[in-house]
């Protein structure tokens, strides 16, 4: 089996990378894929908490890299009956304790056994970012519809391209449909025209996300949650399904007013 490694990154902190990693990973596993999520936010680990696996950590990523334990000893199996594993970050070390090539090597191993390796990237553009992105073949960028997050996303897209990671996909997280309707928040089109990349998902601001995080049960488990539904659809698109983006509607959540697929060929290269 040759799976692929996807990094989930953002530049700006707190926009929802870890939330997206946990939920897309869980949703991909629910769809029958073998999935491993890797927390590379060394020193500030979160993914284990959001997935409710904090108490089961024995070994971590740095232990694997340093050869203290075997790869599968650091893989924590999710409580459910599907194939989902977590490799947690070390909490007592820093981002410089691993090298990009080491993470790449580890992911190559994982790709042999898993359909998807998802990497939760730390915020920023320093060593942690370099580690996380050098291991991946594809990138998903998370932003919120705010100018500062978008500016950082723009920077990140440029950096990814110059390191050979082309055509990243964009998740716009924490959209408040009422605000968009009032003209107080950028909509999908605004963000798309600023960043010129393909949007793979629109996630509404949904307090259930926070409730779920506190309980350690990713929000995709909550069938009634609008954010959960959005992450399920993102996972389906990652998995190759052709699902149009939905308009996020105020009040009664999601109405299936289809918007026509977003331009995928926006960044074609004439010779490739």
């Amino acid at each position, binding site marked *: 089996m040759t799976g692929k490694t996807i990094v989930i990154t953002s530049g700006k902190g707190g926009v929802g990378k870890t939330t997206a990693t946990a939920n897309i990973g869980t949703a991909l596993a629910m769809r029958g894929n073998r999935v491993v999520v890797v927390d590379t936010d060394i020193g500030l680990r979160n993914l284990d908490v959001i997935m409710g696996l904090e108490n089961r950590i024995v070994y971590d990523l740095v232990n694997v890299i340093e050869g203290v334990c075997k790869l599968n000893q650091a893989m924590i199996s999710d409580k459910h009956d599907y194939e989902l594993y977590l490799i947690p970050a070390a909490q007592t070390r820093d981002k410089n304790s691993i090298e990009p090539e080491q993470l790449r090597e580890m992911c190559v191993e994982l790709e042999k056994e898993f359909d998807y390796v998802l990497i939760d990237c730390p915020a920023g553009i320093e060593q942690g970012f370099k580690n996380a992105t050098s291991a991946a073949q594809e990138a998903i960028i998370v932003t919120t519809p705010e100018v500062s997050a978008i*500016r*950082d996303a*723009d*920077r990140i*897209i*440029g*950096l990814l*391209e*110059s390191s*050979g990671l*082309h055509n990243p996909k964009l998740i716009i997280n924490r959209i408040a449909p009422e605000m968009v309707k009032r003209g107080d928040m950028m909509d999908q089109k605004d963000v798309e025209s*600023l*960043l*010129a990349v393909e949007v793979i998902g629109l996630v509404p601001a949904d307090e259930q996300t926070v409730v779920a995080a506190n309980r350690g049960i990713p929000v995709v488990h909550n069938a009634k949650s609008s954010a959960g539904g959005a992450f399920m659809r993102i996972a389906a698109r990652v998995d190759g399904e052709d699902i149009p983006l939905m308009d996020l509607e105020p009040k009664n959540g999601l109405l299936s007013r289809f918007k026509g697929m977003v331009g995928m060929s926006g*960044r074609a*290269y*004439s*010779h*490739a």
Partner: protein
Amino acid sequence: MLETSAVQVIARGTDVAFVIDESAPFDVVAAELREHLSKKSGLWSKGDITVNVGQRMLARDELAQVKSIIETHSGLTVTRFWCSPESLGSGDFQIEAKAAPMPEPVHTVAKPEVKQAEEPIAHNQIVLPASSSEEAPLTSASSITAIESIIEGLKARHNKNGVRNRNITEALFIKSTFRSGETLEHAGDVVVLADVNPGAEIRADGDIVVLGSLKGWVHAGASGDTKAVIIALELPSARFQIAKYPGTAPASARRKSNTSASGPKIAYVRSRSIHVAPYAGRFARYNKGVPYDG
């Protein structure tokens, strides 16, 4: 001579040409370029080179890759990229060599020379063997149509005073969005077929044309040419420069720039300050536009 690889290296006098198969994907080209350079690393010494990308449309990050491949594998420094749109009319020639200034007139190639792939090589050409891979040849040898990439003015071992060939149309085309944190310096014109985002910087000795929204900082005529202009489909950028004259959008224009219904603009130098006017052609007469003096 049957060529099967995407990159051929042909040395002619002091010029070295990398002939690149137009249909080869960039990855392949990059890999072979890397291979060629490292195999022949003994041939290169320190010096500056310029790279002609022909008509191949390269994204910025690809230019960066070409630059880094050449620099890490040869010790050469890539000082600029240029392309010659007019050099590639028909698809049946393979390489256009720039006439290099040669010590002895015998060697001078007066005009760009058109070569068929199968033709024998002139006495003053050295063909470095292409990679030895014995893969199936491309559809036909002559279909290796002419995307050429000439490295000219190579200050290789024997040549200390290579004079650069200047091409009138030294435009650099950039097809992808120029993003925050990215910078570019180019000795000719720069055309960006996308947006230039805030936090990006471009310096060009010639004109800068943005077929998109110019939101970053650009400097046209960077080596002093006050005749250089900046043209953009949308010009919300509040600050840019032509030659030594900085321009800052007046408060009124800054407010207006939020409504993008403004149309293409040209910025130029007039009586020592930057003016911006609706675009009416590169060489139209522009009188007083909106002064960008803050």
